[in-house]
């Protein structure tokens, strides 16, 4: 693969890119062991605080630290302005799209998206057909994954519209950097991210159901301490100043949700749920699930409680639906998409399938409903046997897959083995929606592939994170 575009050095032929001058100079002058010392300090602190995530199927250490890289990634003001506009447009369209497919379905009738792709999608929830969530907001929190392959902007890799995670790392990474490198902040105008929780609280309150009064009761619903993102769930509840509840803490009576407290029962108005649709309510979805709340869907459908994100948003971050997002944006906004998609083959279409099978060893193939880097094929890194096994799966069920070129993700300077080296990165900004408004927090989670040459940034696959600095003008 050719040399990747570098966030600091660009293609290497010109000067350091805009926004990176002070950092580049600082890195040049910093004593060699300073970064390593700070890196160890950060690790100790994260370990002591228990800033961990669980790795499924890893019995030895069910809690791991996500490696933290001390070199920040910088996005200059011009770049951010373009990103922000693109993200607002995209998430605005996403909400309109969800409202439409669970409502009049005009975009299906107009052929913007094939109707059977939506209506037979496992993430499509017929229970929501004809329903409108409180305030008309479907996707309260989105984490849109972006990658960059060159100077000219970012491309959207995924729209995480269900329960995107990672925002706690965005906030903790910033705290850590301010503690470790106060001087560096003094030399930059970094836009703060710590009002994220205020914005989230505001967005959730604004989406409360009618009749919940001036001070609606919010909770964060977690599957429990064994969930991989449990640290984040507790972090958010803490920052929001609300209870972190499990399903067993809640019950439904007369279509109203209550929580069990030491002072008796208390009504709950808004649930920021970090549980997938399937597990929310055993009476409606999976009957044997024990993490949910029996009767929750009835209360939801009666308009007595807000679920964030709304039930059924998963259909919008299905990877096959993703391929239609440019058309969806045009249809609902009347504008050209500001952020492009990564070129994608839809294996459900025979000519696309053929094209994919012809060059399987050059492509990344993903399950349309998958997430977190599970169940995918990275062609160039696969063995012959893996390729053949995947080929068989593709032929057996082409509709379950999409394929994309192996992207030459941009790199950023990263501390590796005691020295700075270029490592591939991506970016997950967080986008909040409330009735009538979409907001993007200036920053996001930059994930970094710590192994030289690797393109896999998922934390479940050993990736790390960096602080993301959005500069003011």
């Amino acid at each position, binding site marked *: 693969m050719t040399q990747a575009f570098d966030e600091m050095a660009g293609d290497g032929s010109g000067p350091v890119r805009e926004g990176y001058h002070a950092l580049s100079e600082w890195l040049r002058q910093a004593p060699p062991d300073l970064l390593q010392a700070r890196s160890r300090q950060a690790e100790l602190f994260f370990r002591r605080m*228990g800033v961990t995530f669980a790795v499924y199927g890893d019995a030895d250490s069910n809690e791991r630290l996500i490696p933290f890289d001390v070199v920040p990634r910088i996005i200059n003001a011009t770049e951010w302005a373009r990103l922000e506009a693109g993200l607002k447009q995209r998430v605005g369209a996403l909400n309109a799209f969800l409202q439409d497919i669970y409502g009049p379905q005009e975009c299906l009738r107009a052929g913007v998206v094939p109707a059977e792709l939506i209506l037979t999608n496992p993430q499509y929830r017929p229970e929501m057909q004809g329903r409108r969530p409180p305030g008309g907001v479907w996707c309260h929190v989105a984490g849109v994954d972006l990658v960059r392959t060159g100077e000219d902007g970012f491309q959207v890799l995924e729209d995480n519209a269900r329960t995107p995670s990672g925002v706690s790392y965005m906030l903790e990474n910033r705290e850590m950097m301010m503690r470790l490198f106060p001087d560096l902040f003094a030399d930059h105008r970094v836009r703060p991210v710590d009002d994220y929780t205020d914005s989230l609280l505001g967005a959730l309150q604004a989406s409360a159901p009618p009749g919940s009064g001036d001070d609606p009761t919010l909770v964060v619903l977690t599957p429990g301490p064994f969930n991989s993102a449990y640290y984040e769930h*507790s972090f958010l509840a803490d920052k929001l100043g609300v209870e972190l509840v499990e399903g067993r*803490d809640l019950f439904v009576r007369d279509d109203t949700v209550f929580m*069990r407290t*030491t002072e008796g029962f208390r009504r709950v108005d808004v649930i920021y749920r970090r549980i997938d649709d399937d597990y929310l309510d055993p009476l409606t979805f999976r009957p044997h699930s024990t993490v949910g709340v029996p009767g929750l869907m009835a209360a939801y459908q009666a308009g007595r409680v807000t679920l964030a994100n709304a039930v059924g948003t998963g259909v919008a971050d299905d990877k096959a639906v993703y391929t239609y997002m440019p058309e969806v944006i045009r249809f609902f906004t009347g504008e050209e998409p500001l952020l492009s998609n990564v070129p994608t083959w839809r294996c459900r279409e025979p000519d696309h399938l053929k094209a994919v099978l012809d060059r399987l060893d050059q492509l990344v193939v993903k399950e349309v409903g998958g997430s977190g880097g599970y169940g995918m094929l990275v062609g160039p890194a696969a063995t012959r046997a893996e390729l053949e096994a995947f080929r068989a799966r593709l032929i057996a069920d082409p509709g379950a897959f999409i394929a994309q070129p192996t992207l030459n993700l941009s790199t950023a300077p990263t501390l590796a083995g005691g020295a700075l080296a270029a490592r591939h990165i991506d970016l997950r900004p967080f986008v909040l929606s409330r009735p009538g408004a979409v907001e993007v927090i200036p920053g996001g989670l930059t994930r970094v592939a710590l192994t030289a040459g690797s393109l896999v940034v998922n934390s479940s696959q050993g990736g790390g994170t960096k602080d993301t600095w959005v500069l003011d003008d």
Partner: protein
Amino acid sequence: MLSRTADSLYWTGRYMERADFLARILEAAVRLAALPTRDDAAQSAWAGALASSGMKGAFDAGGRTVSEKSVREFLAFAADNPTSIKACLTRARTNARSVRTALTIELWEAINGAWNGLNELGQPSRRDDFVGYLDFVKATALAVEGAASRTMLRNDAYWFLRLGMALERADNTARLLDVKYHLLLPPGERVGGQLDYFQWTTLLREVSALTAYRWVYRGSVRPWLVADLLVLNRQMPRSLASCQGMIVSYLERLATDYGRRGPAQRLASAHLSRFNTARIEDIFQSGLHEYIQAFLKENNALGAAISEQYLA
């Protein structure tokens, strides 16, 4: 507060207290076993520690026989002992982690740090390393209690944590006394003899009360005065009377905060009022063992009432 949160705080308190108690009885056993008087003194020390823990049944069920190695392993580390020190600290940490939002950062760090430290220490087999391990556990309990006391708001979270500690402490003190009275002295050894004396002083050391004893009673160690100190003396922070007083006061704080009293408050107050008129002579007269068994039963019933009223 969520009932589940209160429950986890309460059990965090109980498990921390129990880990501390186990460290103390193991430390005492190491001391007793080092006594040069008789060959079977060592064996008796470990049997006594095991009996103090209240886990003799589980120990025997695992097909073990009493020895320094087996008792140390069982009470400090064993995976099949649900209340070994390691299990207690792990459970305290699991409970704390499930309610992190109810803890201050300092308190969470103390508990999480203890768990990290425990994993680093592993299972020391040399006696000096083992004593170091016990010191670590006791220091942890102090750090946790200190962090709670210095950083937590005086609200229900604090009262439930302290309530769990006080209830467990009462239970542990009672067990400790009971075991000394009946089990520790090997057959043939004279009551009031050298070993008996050493055992009573060791028992006081276990709960860091030997100096306190001298201050209070100004004389040599006598069994009924040790019992008086650990049952009735309100100056002694882990006496049954003191623990009962703490339990009542935490329950009263909850009742005040919530504006409602219930069965737990009434039961606890009734227990406490009996300490006001009790005399150690009468207790010895009718049997210390019977007295303690009755206390343990009442303490259990109180725990059940608290669960029913707040934690379910």
